[in-house]
């Protein structure tokens, strides 16, 4: 049956529970091979007019062409939906990706991520006089300082005022909201609620 390989790519992407499944190089290559085969067969059938006295060759060509289009759609959807995830990651993980996730990206995707990061940084710099960090205060802040608890042994952390705190597991601190927000988003600290 046509297009089984490309459908597998889509199914894999749909089913995966990981933040980012590994790029299926081999699967993509196999789809390309199938497409090349379909195209060659169609060219051969279109040029071979002697084999088609009753005008039925068009049926075979139409079916193979549909399979080609379908393969194209699956591949495009595969790449597009992955890139959407990569874009989300810039906002969730920040500009540095965890190594486990980076290992699952293919080379062009890493390049895309880097250039997206760069563009975003340039844009944020261009807002107002001093630039504006769009990733900050995503939710409206109610206070300048928040109480946080450390979830990991992060180590030393230098604050804006030069004071150095040691973020040890289970230790609690009162920190400025602006400073600890990225750490909370990355899952290093958690905000304590009363």
């Amino acid at each position, binding site marked *: 049956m046509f297009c089984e390989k490309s459908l597998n790519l*889509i*199914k894999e*992407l749909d089913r995966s529970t990981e933040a980012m499944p590994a790029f299926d190089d081999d699967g993509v290559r196999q789809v390309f091979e199938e497409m090349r085969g379909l195209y060659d067969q169609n060219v051969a059938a279109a040029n071979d007019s002697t084999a088609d006295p009753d005008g039925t060759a068009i049926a075979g060509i139409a079916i193979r062409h549909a399979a080609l289009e379908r393969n194209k759609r699956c591949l495009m959807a595969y790449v597009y939906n992955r890139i959407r995830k990569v874009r989300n990651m810039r906002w969730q993980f920040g500009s540095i990706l965890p190594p486990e996730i980076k290992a699952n990206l293919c080379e062009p995707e890493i390049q895309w991520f880097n250039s997206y990061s760069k563009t975003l940084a340039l844009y944020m710099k261009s807002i107002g006089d001093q630039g504006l960090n769009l990733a900050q205060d995503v*939710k409206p802040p109610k206070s300048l300082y928040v109480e946080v608890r450390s979830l990991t042994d992060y180590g030393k952390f230098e604050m804006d005022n030069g004071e150095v705190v040691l973020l040890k597991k289970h230790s609690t601190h009162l920190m400025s909201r602006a400073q600890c927000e990225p750490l909370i*988003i990355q899952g290093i600290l958690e905000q304590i*609620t009363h």
Partner: protein
Amino acid sequence: MSLCQSYVPNYFSIADILATQERVPCKFEMQVKHLGFLDPGSDKRDIEIGTSIELPLWMASVLNSQRPSIADVGLPKVFKEAYRDIMKADPCVVDLHKLAKYFYEFGMNLCMLKHRESAEIANVLVESFKQRFRQILDWAQHSTTEVAESKKLDNTEKIIYQMGREVGSRLHMWLTEGGSLITAADMVIQHKKMKLTQKDLLH
């Protein structure tokens, strides 16, 4: 995933690609050379006139749209009159997950084939959605745990149900704690969980 991503005209929609993979019966009206392998039940080289094969919808729509048409596309079981009557009688008890995972999207794509019963199918789709939606809304708003019957929902309905639950819990959060609590990003939490399970597997 937002709903607009799983709507028919979206070229990149994963849900739409999966929905157009559902099979429909096709009866060939033209001989097709060298593609006999499309029929798993035979080992002939060509597809002969009169052969019936179940083919995915994306291929069937091409067979149907050629002039003269290559094959006559029939209706899959789920959209035949007998099943339409069941859906008309009480759509809320039908297990769509078992019957057709992409009931609505598949149905909408099927309607575009201009089958003579298309209007009838479209009607059934709208009516069943209207009635089932009330039930879904009720589950999403009034139960704190996931309802067991939600396993009977089709893909689109499931997205609606999950969205409804999420919105409900967000509203609850906002009412009790206000909106300023900073939380870890979804992907970060997901990634941490993955790492934990991988660790467990190694030890």
